[in-house]
């Protein structure tokens, strides 16, 4: 399977994502420059973390209009998989691939920490190698990760089983203290209406080997292989 990792000016997790796919998962990956119009036959697109366009105006607001995004949006609309991590999540929301928006962390601080994320559903393209309720140790690194959406949108996300990850404590409980950025309903990750676009603030690509403290992100990538190759 071929993964396309988009590089915007200011992306800084593209190498991590590329490494996770090629070295850990053992699959093919290519970098896709933001000015290109060609996904080079990629089956899965990764919108990586970073500070595309310096976060000017709003995080993700400018990147959304990059030439490559027209292809990424078409790829997503065709039902093909897109993983949008951190700044990628912000871009996907700005582009309308996912509902809601990501605002300044409630405590106004940039948070760089290894946190615990609870798997809310294993019934997705991205989580079928986990069990519901699994607690994953995955790092976050963001200043604008507070997920917000209108109450009816949040209700629909929950009702449709599209909330994929929530921030939890070590016991798996949702508490204000375990919610690092003040996200509505402790939401850390969601999928699109069609289930093929995943947006999440935590960085699974940075949790792919115990050498860096956790390999809990590997099964996310394996889930895609399992589903697409099935």
């Amino acid at each position, binding site marked *: 399977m071929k993964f396309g990792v988009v590089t915007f000016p200011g992306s800084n997790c593209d190498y991590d994502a590329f490494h996770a796919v090629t070295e850990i998962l053992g699959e093919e990956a290519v970098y896709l420059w933001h000015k290109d119009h060609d996904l080079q036959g990629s089956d899965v697109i990764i919108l990586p973390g970073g500070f595309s366009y310096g976060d000017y*105006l709003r995080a993700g607001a400018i990147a959304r209009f990059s030439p490559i995004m027209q292809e990424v949006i078409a790829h997503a609309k065709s039902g093909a998989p897109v993983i949008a991590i951190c700044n990628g999540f912000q871009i996907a929301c700005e582009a309308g691939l996912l509902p809601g928006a990501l605002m*300044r962390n409630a405590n*106004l601080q940039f948070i760089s920490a290894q946190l615990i994320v609870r798997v809310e559903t294993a019934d997705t393209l991205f989580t079928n190698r986990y069990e519901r309720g699994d607690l994953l140790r995955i790092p976050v690194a963001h200043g604008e990760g507070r997920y*917000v*959406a209108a109450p009816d949108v949040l209700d629909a996300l929950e009702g449709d089983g599209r909330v994929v990850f929530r921030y939890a404590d070590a016991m798996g409980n949702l508490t204000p203290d375990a919610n690092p950025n*003040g996200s509505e309903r402790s939401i850390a990750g969601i999928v699109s209406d069609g289930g093929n676009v995943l947006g999440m603030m935590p960085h699974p690509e940075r949790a792919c080997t115990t050498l860096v403290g956790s390999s809990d992100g590997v099964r996310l990538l394996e889930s895609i292989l399992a589903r697409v190759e099935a």
Partner: protein
Amino acid sequence: MAKFRIAVHITPRKGLLDPQGKAVTDALHTLGFQSVTNVHVGRYIIIESDAYDAITAEEAVTEMCKKLLANPVTEDFEIESAVHA
């Protein structure tokens, strides 16, 4: 065609948590401005543009706000009347 200058105010949507506004409110209280009840921190954007008339310029900026300058989920925008630049 004439040159116009259009200013846009973009503010966090009312009702959404505005931690930046809250932090500034607290700082003003610390400075002794106890009368301050609320602060909202947004953006002020000045656009200079060619247009046939002020109405056309304002309509274009409204579109710009909807498509890029403001986030429809989290922000409100208000456009000042276009003035000749």
